[in-house]
């Protein structure tokens, strides 16, 4: 197992900057998820780590070894592809032992390792079938077996669940996570699905526009997004973001007389950021906004989504400022009626409307 270190790694395709210079250190045994919308450079980053894509600049270290210009076969990594890339002309057994043959392992070792992974992934019964005959989940397991059998320094996975049915995806997600816990292998996992990222990652690297937006644990990126992009991208629906004007410990929000009293621990930070009088963006998760008859803020019900355990209200604070507010499932709110809600003071965040960056309570050194 090994650490992976990217130093100022970048990729250009002609004039197109696919990945802007980025630094990232992935610790030994860590499960890191690269998350972002399609075209954000996450897959390119993964392919550069694997060596399938050359870097335009910067260097890559694998377990302290500079592998920047090594051939993929010399890097000691395993890659799980989105469409599995099982060799269609070989049986499952031949597919799994294929990488071991490259390493010139003895027949005895090959048999032993094969037996191990086959037992681990419970695929004994399909060893002699060809990949074309297998279900999506079995193909996924064979692809994982082919990666595991090598005992590589690191696993790279490119949306390995993207080709599976929704119901299957969830159980395979747990299976992969379980495997990771068993093997404690350094894993880099690419996905565009934020639910998957939250569920699986020890740390999440949120990418957009060819650069890293935030690196943090799932709780960090969820509760303390570094900027407006992360705030909107993580969570479904994303964070509510409302433009307002900060003055004297209050934020004037859209709508009739919507004055929000800023929690006291935020006042110094907002005074510092706005100079005591300036525009801010208030961000809060739907679950931080709870409908209550004595609520501080007021809006009109625009639509309601029943989620079973709770109901999400779309509340129109002013013309186009619609926020998501959670209410309990028993109370019904007819469309068009006024509704009052409170914000949980611990879950409110503020952003600078010009830079899009989060305003921090603590002074950043």
């Amino acid at each position, binding site marked *: 197992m090994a650490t992976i270190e990217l130093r100022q790694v970048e990729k250009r395709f002609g004039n197109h900057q696919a990945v802007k210079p980025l630094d990232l250190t992935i610790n030994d045994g860590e499960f890191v998820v690269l998350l972002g919308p399609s075209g954000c450079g996450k897959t390119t980053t993964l392919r550069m780590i*694997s*060596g*399938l894509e050359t870097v335009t600049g910067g260097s890559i270290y694998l377990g302290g070894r500079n592998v920047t210009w090594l*051939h*993929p*076969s010399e*890097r000691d*990594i*395993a*890659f799980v*592809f989105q*469409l599995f*890339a099982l*060799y*269609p*002309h070989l049986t499952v057994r031949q597919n799994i032992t*294929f*990488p071991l043959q*490259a*390493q010139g392992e003895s027949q005895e070792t090959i048999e032993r390792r094969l037996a191990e992974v086959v037992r681990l992934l419970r695929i004994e019964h399909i060893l002699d079938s060809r990949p*074309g005959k297998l279900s999506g989940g079995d193909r996924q397991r064979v692809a994982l077996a*082919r990666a595991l059998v*090598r005992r590589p320094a690191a696993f*790279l996975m490119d949306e390995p669940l993207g080709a599976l049915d929704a119901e299957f995806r969830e159980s395979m997600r747990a299976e992969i996570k379980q495997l990771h816990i068993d093997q404690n292998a350094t894993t880099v996992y690419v996905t565009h699905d934020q639910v998957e990222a939250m569920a699986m990652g020890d740390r999440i690297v949120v990418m957009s526009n060819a650069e890293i937006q935030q690196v943090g644990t799932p709780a960090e990126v969820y509760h303390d997004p570094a900027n407006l992009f992360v705030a909107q991208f993580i969570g479904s629906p994303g964070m509510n973001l409302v433009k307002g004007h900060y003055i004297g410990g209050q934020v004037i929000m859209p709508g009739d007389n919507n004055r929000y009293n800023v929690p006291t621990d935020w006042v110094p930070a907002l005074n510092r950021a706005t100079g005591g009088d300036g525009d801010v963006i208030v961000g809060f998760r739907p679950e931080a906004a709870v409908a209550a008859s004595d609520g501080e803020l007021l809006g009109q019900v625009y639509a309601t989504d029943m989620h079973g355990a709770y109901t999400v209200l779309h509340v129109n604070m002013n013309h186009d400022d619609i926020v998501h507010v959670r209410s309990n499932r028993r109370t019904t709110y007819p469309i068009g009626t006024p509704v009052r809600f409170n914000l949980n003071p611990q879950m409110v965040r503020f952003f600078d409307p010009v830079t899009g960056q989060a305003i921090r309570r603590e002074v950043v050194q």
Partner: protein
Amino acid sequence: MATFQETGPRTPVTTSIRVDKVRPGARLTRTIRAIVVVALALGGLIPVFAMGITAFKSRNAVVSVPPSLIPVPDGDRLRLEAAEARRQTGETSLAQHFFQPTLEGFVFLLTERAQAGPARAAQLAELRAEGELPLFDRVALNAGQEILGPSQYVGRLKNSIIIAGISTVASVVLGLFAAYAFSRFDIPGKDDLLFFILSTRMLPPVVVTIPLFLMYRTLGLHDTHFGMILLYTVFNLSFSVWLLKGFIDEIPREYEEAALVDGYSRLQAFFRIVLPQALTGIAATTVFCLIFAWNEYAFALMLTSEVARTAPPSIPTMLGRGGIEWAAIAAGTLGFLIPVVIVTFALRNYLLRGVTFGAIRQ
């Protein structure tokens, strides 16, 4: 909302209510289509059938009117005599179409013969009586001839096999590597190069025979095996590069990339992963290249004379010598078809998928 929760969902529909959607007319249309296809195929096979039976006719049977169409086995004297009798009287019946198959055509095609003198003929007849005369000599003796040795045609058939075989292998192997490179790597001026390769086929090959003839004479390639192999390889290469590129484009890159991270070099990945999956395309390309090189007539006629002449320009020359040997020509043509038929048949499983030009995978 409330009522829904109380009653629960209605019973789900578990049985299909789909009916058989084949129109009654569709079955008839399909039958008619099948009949038309079979009729066309049979029509197309008439010349092949004519050639096939002509190859086994004697000189007389070839030119008999009405034409003899039905071979009856050797020794079926009664039928043949009946046929002859009917022919004399001019009576129409099936029997007048009988003929006795013979290997005369093949013997005339493959051997040099001379009229056997009376003494020699008697000697051969004696050998035949003892059962020690080989098949071909017996056939020749029936026509009053003795075999001196193999004809020129045997050597030319050999030339055809060598030239077509080597040039096909060369153009498919070279084409495969070129196609792989064009398909997978960023080659400067790739599109221009591909267009240039294609442009070599943009005029009828015959147009360049005269310049080629002059070049070959100067370079000493005229009437050499190497010259013909080179020529056919180059002509087929453009075709095989384009055809194989289409097939290789269809193989997802992920397979090779998986092999690369699994610890294989690019060349190993090519041989172990790409090659097995490109077999369909390789088979189709092989057959097309072989057919071209095997059947090529104009260049062979112009650029070869004695040493490297192939079979196609040799067959018509038999029209000249001492009357038209229709049976020999038919035998030559029939024998000439067989290698291509065998190769096509051997590769038929790949071809069935291959002729769709890689449109269908797995």
